[in-house]
């Protein structure tokens, strides 16, 4: 039982922390978001140079060989800085599939580009009718000649607008919600028959509706075995849940501390509002929610590193439930205690609140994961 970090882990943590502190204050973030892509390609190159894009990949694949703890350390800082660069869709999601199930050729064609920062990606999995059910797919991939033809509508593809290629889940057989018959495909963003509608998300990221109309891909576009992708999708999504959960923990830390600071300075009725007992206790509650979330963050990461099994899945869902509840509370109270200032686009508080609200939805909300957690009992 050991909560300490290895030297390498400490270095990683310090490196991201330093970046957030020095190169990603709220003004810089605003400028970055105003760029055409909604993030900075320059920052992305810096991430590549700092080795962050290589973290989860094996040394054999040109990576760093990091596990869940490394992902946690990085994502927590990304949450603290509200970093908008597409680490989640490119490295965690698309990269997650490639490193686990990509063929040598696929790795060479795509993974190396992710690691050196030259290729961005996204995972197109949700569909308008599917809510949080990963197996509810109407997008089809029909065998044609030596390859497949994909048709369907993929919803809210995070990172879609800037993706060079997509990982797409589609049904090669079975009925709409069957566990079997789901396959994954690599599809170039410029493929014929693929069209997008891009838009910003509430929390300042970018997403797309992706329409596939008879998009033809070769046999080599298939990731892993045909029709057997669901367990792989679940595993990669669980990585992503860890990632956004850690972001939420980072965001909560910033929020509760910022609220405490603000309450020491804001004077009303002749004293700092931090002297009012009701607000003091509220901030203690915020602090406790943060600490409890952090505890389950550690547990989820450590369980994942022990192996991907029911204990890990349960820990992930428990973490997501906690982060959903705590994130809502901390976000809402931070806004409330900042008063009118908390409601403005100008202050960062509201942006953390929005991100926390959205993280509750991402990959299944509290209800969804409370049920999933219980299913392992």
């Amino acid at each position, binding site marked *: 039982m050991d909560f300490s970090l290895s030297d390498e882990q400490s270095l990683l943590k310090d490196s991201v922390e330093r970046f957030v502190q020095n190169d990603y204050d709220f003004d810089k973030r605003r400028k970055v978001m105003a760029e055409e892509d909604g993030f900075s390609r320059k920052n992305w190159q810096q991430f590549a140079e700092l080795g962050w894009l290589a973290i989860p990949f094996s040394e054999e694949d040109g990576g760093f060989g990091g596990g869940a703890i490394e992902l946690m350390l990085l994502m927590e800082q990304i949450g603290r800085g509200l970093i908008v660069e597409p680490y989640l869709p490119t490295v965690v999601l698309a990269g997650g599939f490639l490193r686990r199930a990509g063929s040598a050729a696929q790795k060479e064609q795509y993974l190396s580009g992710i690691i050196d920062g030259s290729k961005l990606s996204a995972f197109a999995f*949700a569909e*308008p*009718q599917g*809510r*949080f*059910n990963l197996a*509810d797919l109407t997008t089809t991939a029909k065998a044609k000649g030596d390859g497949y033809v994909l048709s369907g509508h993929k*919803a*809210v593809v*995070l990172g879609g607008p800037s993706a060079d290629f997509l990982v797409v889940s589609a049904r090669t057989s079975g009925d*709409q*919600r069957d566990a079997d018959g789901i396959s994954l495909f690599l599809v170039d963003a410029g493929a014929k028959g693929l069209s997008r*509608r891009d*838009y*910003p*998300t*509430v*929390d300042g990221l970018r*997403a797309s*509706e992706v329409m596939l109309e008879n998009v033809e891909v070769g046999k080599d576009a298939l990731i892993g075995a045909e029709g057997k992708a669901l367990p792989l999708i679940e595993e990669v999504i669980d990585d992503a849940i860890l990632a956004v959960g850690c972001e939420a923990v980072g965001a909560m830390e910033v929020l509760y501390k910022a609220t405490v600071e603000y309450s020491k300075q804001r*004077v*009303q*009725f002749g004293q700092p509002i931090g002297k*009012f007992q*009701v*607000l003091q206790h509220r901030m203690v509650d915020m602090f406790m929610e943060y600490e409890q979330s952090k505890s389950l963050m550690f547990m989820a990461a450590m369980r994942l590193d022990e192996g991907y099994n029911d204990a890990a899945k349960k820990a992930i869902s428990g973490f997501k439930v906690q982060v959903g509840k705590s994130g*809502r509370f901390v976000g*809402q109270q931070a*806004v*409330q205690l900042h*008063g*009118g200032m*908390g*409601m*403005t*686009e*100008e202050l960062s508080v*509201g942006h953390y*609140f*929005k991100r926390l*609200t*959205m993280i509750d*939805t*991402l990959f299944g*909300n509290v*209800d969804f994961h409370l*049920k999933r957690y219980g299913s392992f009992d």
Partner: protein
Amino acid sequence: MDLKLREEDLAFQREVREFIDRHWPEEVRKARRNVGRFEETKGEAPEVRRFIDALNERGWAVPNWPAEWGGTDWTPTEKYIWDKETARAECPQLSAFGARMLAPVLYTWGTAQQKERFLPLIREQKMIWCQGYSEPGAGSDLAALATRAVRDGDEFVVNGTKIWTTGAHVADWMFCLVRTGTEGKKQEGISFLLIDMTTPGITVNPIHLLGGIHSVNEVELADVRVPVANLVGEENKGWTYAKGLLTHERTGIAGVARSEVMLARMKDIARETGVDGGSLWDDAEFRRKVHALEIDLEALAMTELRVLSQVEQGGAPGPESSILKIRGTELSQALQTLQIDVFGYYGLAYPDQTLIDNEGPVGHPYGLTAMQAMLYGRASTIFGGSNEIQKNIISKAVLGL
């Protein structure tokens, strides 16, 4: 004790419904339903103008005003029916700053000239007002305001900064609390001024709220000259007028009818939202949450009726009236938060209104409105006296602590 409406009230209800159906028909309601309405914009849609004209023609524009200024002699029950029916049909309302907040001050404490000049324009919504109360240093502690008005001949010279001023960028006039005296308690020495927004020295700086909504502003006043004729009531007594105003409008403060509309719509959308071969409405946990809120809402609605009944009997509202704002805002926030859950991943999608106008909505057409309502709704427990302040007040005034 019973909940039934009397025959004459039922007749009134029918009359109101007919009026609404004629002037704010179903097709207009539907067309406007999915439009985010949290931005304050200059000018009105033609259908809104038509409705307000119809209100004025019928003499129903300002039911709560004294009859001599165009009000009605409705009983509290009739006012309640009016509020309920118009909320249910999502009818446009007169801008609250003029009709609900300034007007009672004017017809109670204003001069004859002030009344004649302003009340008709407010009633017809031909003059838009904003409220200059909050300041950067005076939020919950409103009486700490520092904007100075110094008498110079028959003018006041006003200097200071107002903040969170809803609609200042579209308003013709502002009613404003200013400091005219510095002696005694901070509540003393405050005056109530009416300021033409075109007066030189006024700068309106937009403040963008969560979701990019432009509704509130910062208003800088630099040597703004205001005729003494625009002082309402006595100099240095403005706090009394403003305070009276804050407790003036009890009816509708809980937002029950609005919340009922939201709840019903959420159920409808959940029934249409497919999940795992059924609908979201089949999800017991989702239903449980909706019904728990529905019970809270029914309790609040009944509390409002209790207050109404006391007023109807000619009594003062009892202590239960104090909870209307707190519970009403808590509940609307809870509904707004649950509501975005309905949209699943599409709750993340946030194309702005222009995008929708050009290409149609992403996901459910009500999604943008729901998200903006949730974001903007966070202000309801902050502005107009935060819920913490409300609890302080109840603690003192009701519990005697």
